[in-house]
């Protein structure tokens, strides 16, 4: 089979010649249809042939490689599935997202403004979310979760954020909090914590930020000093989401100098020496508590350390890779929600707005365009993270920055369309704008994201 051609790649122009795959490679080919791109190839003369013909010939190729009928069927299904759904959500995903949207609307639509006004942590909603399984999305099936890819988690958070951003934040923080355990924990730690987190019995927070270490995690000061079978923790964490309501936190503390001296721990809320400091009064996201953690000779047993000493910084980076697309998704959801309110208003008051309806329509169009661009970028970034692509980190930063800027712009414009009514607390768009501001700031300000993106751009020579 010398000079075997892979016509699927040749439907338009390249006549690909490769070594015939050995039977060992067949398994690999079957598993990953994208592996074609990795087969060594050289250029040839242009050939003609259609998509359909390409597919037919490819199937012939696979037949010649002795695939069983079952495999072949699965393969045809894969190609078909892809053709039908490229750059689109599968029906399964759409259905899942719609169910989450339904849940969020049922549970939150009527009470979001009260939650916001009273700055109340909505336990009853969290309970419903837990029953639905929203806290187990990122937890592998083995530990009682549903082990969904990041794209699905993004979809879920987007839908919740369309209705209420405090609640979306609660879901997002959960993913952030469990990520260090998932990535750095040993079997015992995982088995101990993840099932409870997945069920929503344990709410978990992320205890990274300090007064002097925000976007610059490398300069954190909270100390963990090893004494026999435990660590003594001293220091202070601030702006910690879920402070006071969480039953545990993923904690970063310093066990030595430099970035390599940062270690990660599971911090149980009931350990002695941990005190919840003040709970912040905030502009938005008021249904999600943010507060201080104060450590005074707080004792954490040795077995609560995640990974080796010094693994903390990498675990934090691993977490950010997941949570940044989630913030992007939250931004997209928020923008969508704000846009929906604006659309509803524009339709309802079409008569009254008539004199300026054109300009309103332009504004609505711009809001929709930006939101949609952000949405596609979020799905792309999530898909790259799921595929463990080398560009995933850069895209994570891009999407966090882009989508949160879009959320801010769109929600600001939504108020503008409502006019003075939008400024009143009787309408939800004001809350959306206040909530949006947070996204530009937390998990690394958008300024630091831009520095990160630029570093990634400048490290790779432009082609």
């Amino acid at each position, binding site marked *: 089979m010398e000079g075997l051609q892979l016509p699927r790649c040749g439907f338009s*122009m*390249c006549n690909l010649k490769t070594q015939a795959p050995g039977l060992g490679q067949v398994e690999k080919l079957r598993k990953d249809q994208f592996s074609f791109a990795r087969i060594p190839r050289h250029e040839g003369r242009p050939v003609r042939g*259609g998509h359909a013909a390409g597919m037919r010939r490819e199937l012939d190729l696979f037949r010649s490689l002795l695939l069983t009928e079952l495999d072949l069927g699965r393969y045809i299904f894969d190609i078909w599935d*892809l053709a039908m759904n490229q750059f689109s959500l599968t029906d399964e995903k759409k259905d899942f997202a719609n169910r989450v949207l339904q849940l969020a609307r049922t549970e939150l639509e009527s009470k979001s403004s009260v939650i916001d006004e009273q700055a109340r942590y909505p336990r009853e909603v969290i309970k419903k979310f837990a029953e639905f399984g929203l806290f187990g999305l990122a937890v592998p099936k083995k530990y009682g979760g549903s082990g969904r890819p990041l794209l699905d988690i993004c979809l879920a958070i987007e839908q919740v954020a369309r209705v209420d951003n405090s609640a979306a934040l609660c879901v997002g923080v959960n993913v952030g909090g469990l990520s260090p355990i998932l990535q750095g924990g040993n079997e015992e730690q995982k088995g101990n914590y993840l099932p409870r987190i997945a069920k929503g019995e344990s709410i978990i927070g992320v205890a990274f930020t300090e007064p002097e270490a925000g976007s610059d995690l490398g300069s954190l000061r909270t100390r963990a000093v090893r004494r026999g079978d435990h660590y003594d923790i001293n220091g202070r964490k601030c702006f910690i989401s879920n402070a006071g309501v969480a039953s545990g936190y993923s904690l970063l503390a310093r066990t030595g100098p430099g970035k390599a001296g940062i270690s990660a721990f599971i911090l149980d809320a009931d350990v002695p020496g941990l005190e919840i400091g003040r709970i912040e009064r905030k502009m938005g996201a008021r249904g999600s508590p943010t507060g201080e953690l104060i450590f005074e000779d707080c004792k954490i047993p040795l077995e609560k350390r995640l990974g080796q000493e010094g693994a903390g910084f990498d675990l934090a980076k691993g977490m950010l890779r997941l949570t940044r697309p989630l913030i992007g998704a939250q931004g997209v959801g928020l923008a969508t929600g704000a846009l929906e309110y604006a659309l509803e208003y524009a339709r309802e008051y079409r008569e009254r707005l008539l004199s300026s309806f054109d300009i309103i*329509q332009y504004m609505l169009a711009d809001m929709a365009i930006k939101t949609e661009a952000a949405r596609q*970028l979020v*799905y792309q970034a999530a898909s790259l993270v799921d595929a463990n692509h080398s560009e995933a980190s850069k895209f994570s930063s891009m999407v966090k920055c882009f989508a949160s800027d879009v959320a801010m712009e769109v929600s600001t414009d939504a108020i503008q369309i409502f006019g003075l009514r939008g400024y009143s607390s009787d309408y939800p768009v004001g809350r959306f704008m206040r909530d949006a501001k947070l996204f530009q700031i937390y998990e690394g300000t958008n300024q630091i994201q831009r520095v990160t993106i630029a570093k990634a*751009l400048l490290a790779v020579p432009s082609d």
Partner: protein
Amino acid sequence: MTEHYQLTSEQNILKETVGRMAQEKIGPYAAEIDETGEFPWDVHGQLKELGLFGLVIPEDYGGSDAGMLSAVLALEEIGRVCSSSAIICAAPIVVGRIILESGNDEQKRKYLPQIASGETIPAFALTESDADSDLARLTTKADREEDRYIINGRKYFIPLADVAGLMTVFARTGQGSAMDAVSVFVVERENPGWSVSRIERKMGTQAIHDCELIFERCVIPEANRLGKDGGGFIIAMRSQEVSCILTAARTIGLAQGAFDYALGYTQERIQFGRSISSFQGIQFMLADMAMQIEAGRYLLYKAGAEMDRGADEGYLYGSMAKCFVTDMAMKLTTDAVQLLGGYGYMKDHPLERMMRDAKLTQVVDGTNQSRRLVVGREILKRYPTTV
């Protein structure tokens, strides 16, 4: 699990191949054809050889039937080096699709193979001075005389008409509303009674001549009418969707090309003893440019994929992508010139050309303002939404 949010391997290979060809074979001509303003037959030959004119034309008619998303990728890569050349590649896709969707078997057999092979350059003649893209005000008339039509009128800003072998011409065939009084004809070069009366002098994409056309008793056999008499409105709308996406495609390439150039420059340029890319002010500009490009790119791919599925969504997403990408490219190329400082303004570097080319994309295929009206109308129609 299949990764739906990524290009397939064949799409990646297509993109890579066209990209390499464009860098090697088209890029070197870009400045020259902008300068001379002559139609680049060499480039046309290269595109022809690669079979890029038949991307959306079925195999049976000599095309490769690769789909709209693949066409988007090809145009993106050509647009990276030369916007004018990308237009040469876009025209057969637009006209090919019109004929494919509206033509009868005989018309398809007659026209599609010559378009797909690149033997004939097609043009698309809709715009008039008063009508612009507003079909209701079309004044060019096609009067029926037995088994033929007599076309009289003028068309403005028709790209490629001077080199085209055939044109799809929109003309009024009745009195009523444009919805059912406009028809489309294939006018061939040999058909008597039409001429190019003037070639516009313009700001950018110099190699593509925008022509003013005069039709004086231009006689067209009935067999050259596409679709039914009075069926032109839908065809015009559909073709505008396609050209929107294609314009966005070459423009995302334009933005990427300008960005790549500026990025490379900032790393080499030394000021105050260090490369200017080490200044955070510059880094912020670069980061913003990169984000805008990626967001535009995936909005565009989404639009292409939707169009391949034949969904109504293609129209909405196409308009969105066109607005977003072209506005972004205008701002981006302006900033890219800025990053090069005085050099950016000079013709020794490609950025001033790219900035001039970018402006066209905001006004062509229905200005971005009229696209926004479409988007606004569509989203109002679709509300309330689910996922």
